């Protein structure tokens, strides 16, 4: 046990020292339209009355360029439009950045023994050697300059890649980041949950389940942290 802790600490230390130039995503409060932003150290910034303010969010995996592309692409998948807020307000790019930097991004729980049978039929599931980190890094190369294109051209670019592994992942992650518990960095201010009338985790619906038959019951959403009044550590924040 001690042996393992020691090695993992060494690895973590080495990783810290190799940290590249820090990248930040600069966003205006208005662009997230939101109220709550979870910064890297998990302090909550409230930005209500300062819509003109901008703030810098430290990135864990993406470069600033990459983050801007991901934000733009996610917002074509779940756009902000007349049917309500979308991936942009939910802070999806921050969610994806954290997922990629965490165990999931590194494929920590996938079977990655060789040989890889890339040409296997689709019913065997994803068989590639590339981790989510790699898939994004490679995939984003195909989208260079994406965020500066007019919207119709952005859509055309996405149509070109929509059959591929990268797009599939981006689409899934965009849905995750829009609807996850805010503790993962997405669904900022629970905009995703409000969009669809999901109240978040509720301890009990015992009194209501019999009562609302075919009519909406829409309790005010509360996140896990708000409900339990306790901090929670999401899986992407690893202990070092």
């Amino acid at each position: 046990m001690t042996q393992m802790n020691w090695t993992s600490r060494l690895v973590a230390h080495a990783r810290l020292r190799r940290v590249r130039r820090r990248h930040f995503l600069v966003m205006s409060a208005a662009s997230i339209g939101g109220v709550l932003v979870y910064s890297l150290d998990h302090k909550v910034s409230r930005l209500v009355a300062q819509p003109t303010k901008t703030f810098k969010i430290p990135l864990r995996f993406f470069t600033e360029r990459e983050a801007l592309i991901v934000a733009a692409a996610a917002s074509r998948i779940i756009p902000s439009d007349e049917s309500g807020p979308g991936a942009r307000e939910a802070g999806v790019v921050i969610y994806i950045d954290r997922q990629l930097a965490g165990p999931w991004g590194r494929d920590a729980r996938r079977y990655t023994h060789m040989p890889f049978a890339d040409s296997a039929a689709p019913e065997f599931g994803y068989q590639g050697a590339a981790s989510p980190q790699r898939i994004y890094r490679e995939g984003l190369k195909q989208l260079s300059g994406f965020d500066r294109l007019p919207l119709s051209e952005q859509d055309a670019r996405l149509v070109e890649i929509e059959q591929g592994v990268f797009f599939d992942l981006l689409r899934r992650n965009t849905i995750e980041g829009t609807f996850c518990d805010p503790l993962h960095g997405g669904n900022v201010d629970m905009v995703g949950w409000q969009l669809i009338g999901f109240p978040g985790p509720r301890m009990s619906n015992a009194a209501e389940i019999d009562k609302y038959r075919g009519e909406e019951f829409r309790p005010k959403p509360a996140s896990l942290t708000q409900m339990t009044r306790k901090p929670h550590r999401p899986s992407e924040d690893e202990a070092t």
Partner: protein
Amino acid sequence: MKNLPRTDIAIVGGGWTGLLLAKEIAQRTALNVVVLERGTARRSEDYANDMDELDYAVRFSMMQDYSQETVTLRHTSRDRAIPIRQLGNFLPGTGTGGAGEHWDGFFPRHVPDLFELYTKTVERYGEKKLPEDHAIVDWGITWAEIEPYYTKADKLIGTSGKAGNLRGKVVDGGNRFEGSRSEEYPTPPMKNSYFSSLFGDAVKSLGYHPYPNPSAILSIAHTNLDGIARPGCFYCGFCSRFGCMVSAKSQPTNTLLPIIEQHKTVAIRNNCSVRRVLHEGNKTRGVNYVDASGEECYQPADVVMLCSWTLNNTRLLLLSGIGEPYDSATGKGAVGRNLTHQVGSATTLFMEKPLNRFMGAAASGFCISDFDGDNFDHSDLLFVRGGLLRAMGTGSQPILSFGTVPASVKARWGSEWKKAAVYWYDRVGGISFSGEHIPYKTNYMDLDITYKDHLGDPLLRLTIDWHDNDKEMVKFASSKGTEIAKAMGAKEILTQPPYDHYDARRYQTTHIQGGTIMGKSPDASVVNTWGQHWELPNLFIVGASTMPCQGAANPTPTVLALAYRTADALIDHYLKNPHSLI
């Protein structure tokens, strides 16, 4: 290699079966028991804070770590097997409580004729009706022999439901097709979601016979046969893939562990992966495992009980060289044969009114058995057997359910799709079909020749594909699903595409059976009907790996009934006089 002091009984696996046996042995004997569990320690209090869809339901934090161990898959014995690299078609558990922590808790008994499947089917339709290549056999036990153990399992769980056949008399409101029960359910049926009630009304109008799902989730506060008190369900909807934060859902950690912890005779060792069952002549002498620090340990034991679920019960026999591996070409050998999964399909309904589907509980809702087993005439149908149709009452969370739109919406992303997905989000309901998967000679398990686990042992290889009987059953189920959906007033209906090849991406259920099947004689089975190994009488195998075929019903009631039966055989007979029980 660390040599450990001898123990009376070593149990491999700390899930439903392993902990049930540990509890029974602790309560009824003074013997020392060591439970070896590969995953981490867990207690029911751990679940107070787990209502996070992403980490639990999407990233599967309670389930087996595939970076360490998975299985390989091929469709026929001529193909090269390919590893299943991420969780998909089933979701095996790990850690104290096993899959019994994050399960759904549907708790139905099997149809009575399942135990004599070969005899009964041939009696009614003749040998010709059986599918080509089938491996259907009788279990060697009958309904009458297992019923008292089902009742015991119900009293452990506090099962909620309504009897449909009480001591031979059909009762209104319950499942009229069930085998005769000796007692009513311990607790009344659960509450129903709006959608599920619509299903109940619709199937009744069609002349079918709805009944509330038998459920391992308490409907009201209840104290079980061991004096364990648990509260009724809160319908929070965070059931399936989560542990219940209030212990309304029966889980090994809230039903068995509190009793085990009162006994000093049981030690549960976590983070210990068993690699081999050691044997000499006609006896096992213990197990080898790797402990949390990575050290190899030898645990000698007088009795070994494999409770590591279907896949590892089978794999450990193969790795240990116990018994003859099944050979699909010759039909010889028994270890690995009769692999079954589950035939499943789903019908998606787009309803007019909002459903508030965040409320609910996994095993709540209505079910019909009109098309299960042989409850309907198959003379003119292209398949045998059938399954259960249910309206899902499970509470749903947004990541896994957002984005379902009617077929008329072609887009998968962008404004048009989003608008439809938002509109329909709370109007989508599902009817699921859980069908019986017939055993075939060509569906089996053996050791992979290429891929290894993190310790360097060969992975288990599944050779499995869907046959015509399964495909026809799915077609039939989809037509029934559509009929019911229309009667429920669905605005639009989506049916799952028909079966093609067995698909590692498609979650069926985590109901995998076979590999170490029971039987009346040693030539085509691994254990006798008590779960005792034919060749090594001090080795017992417990769990769905001993089931020669799969019933449509969820397996755990039968698994627990058989585990109780093994406990009786071990404690009342074997330990008094160690011998082969036949």
